[in-house]
């Protein structure tokens, strides 16, 4: 899986706002808002990656249990899919 568009994430006051870049902005004019851990998951989706690989990558950055990380990854994936950008 991979984000459908090139998304630039900008951090302001602890929130990460994602915006589609360049010509992709005409296809996706909304913005996506994530907290820091959400961003730490979404940033890996700029390139093709499987769910298991994504959990592995995030596990290298966070000390939480794999179950907790898997749940967070699934929540972010669901949010991005709801937005239609994954």
């Amino acid at each position: 899986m991979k984000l459908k568009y090139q998304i630039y994430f900008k951090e302001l006051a602890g929130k990460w706002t994602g915006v589609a870049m360049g010509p992709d902005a005409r296809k996706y004019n909304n913005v996506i808002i994530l907290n820091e851990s959400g961003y730490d998951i979404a940033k890996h989706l700029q390139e093709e990656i499987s769910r298991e690989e994504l959990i592995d990558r995030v596990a290298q950055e966070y000390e939480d249990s794999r179950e907790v990380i898997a749940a967070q990854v699934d929540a972010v994936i669901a949010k991005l899919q709801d937005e239609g950008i994954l």
Partner: protein
Amino acid sequence: MKGYYKIADELFEIHSIYDEVQTMCHDYACAELPEGVSPIVVATTLEEIREEQKLSDEEMIYEGLEPIAFPDSYLETLVVYRKMCSVLPHRGVILMHGSVIAVDGEAYMFTACSGTGKSTHVRLWRQLFGERAVMVNDDKPLVRVRATEDGHKEIIIYGTPWDGKHHLSTNMSAPLKAICILERGAENEIHRVGAAEAFPMLIQQSFRPDDREGFIRAIDLLGDVAENVGLYDLHCNMNPEAARVSYEGMQ
């Protein structure tokens, strides 16, 4: 046709096919360029004018409206501004969509989705403040982020010739005191909002260049704007009282 213009403290050399853009920018004309200064050169082609019509059609369809066939001379004014605003982020300047009025030398921007009533609200301000108020721009002002010597960021807003259907603007600049996100409401009510909360709306009401570097620079500048001006959410009706409530709420 060719003309030199100083807009938002930047010099432009505009080459156009039609004279509409040159006429429109008349108040910003420079008789000649200062020695040793290289202007930003903007030129247009018929292909770019056709492309602008296509972009306009796409936007109208996206908003559920019937596309309008605009005259080429008008479309060229949009091509020129699009090109200018694609370069300007590299000089610390971005385009925002909003109606801007200055009162006692400080500027206030009202932004909202089209048709919400920005211009109507600002008209109430002009009625309330009379000669204390100056219309900076009613549609597409430019905003500069300037680093100060003490490490802060100063936000300056400029009038431009791209000033909406009523052509309300002044060739001037003013410090931007606040940005107000306007929504219609039965009662008049204003409250302060945080940068993160307001940022999505500010993004949607700003111009983002197509090229990656320009895009990132524009979003980063917009972040600086959000962090350095007062941000407010205003629900208002069309009564004169709305202007007093919004002004007092932003002091």
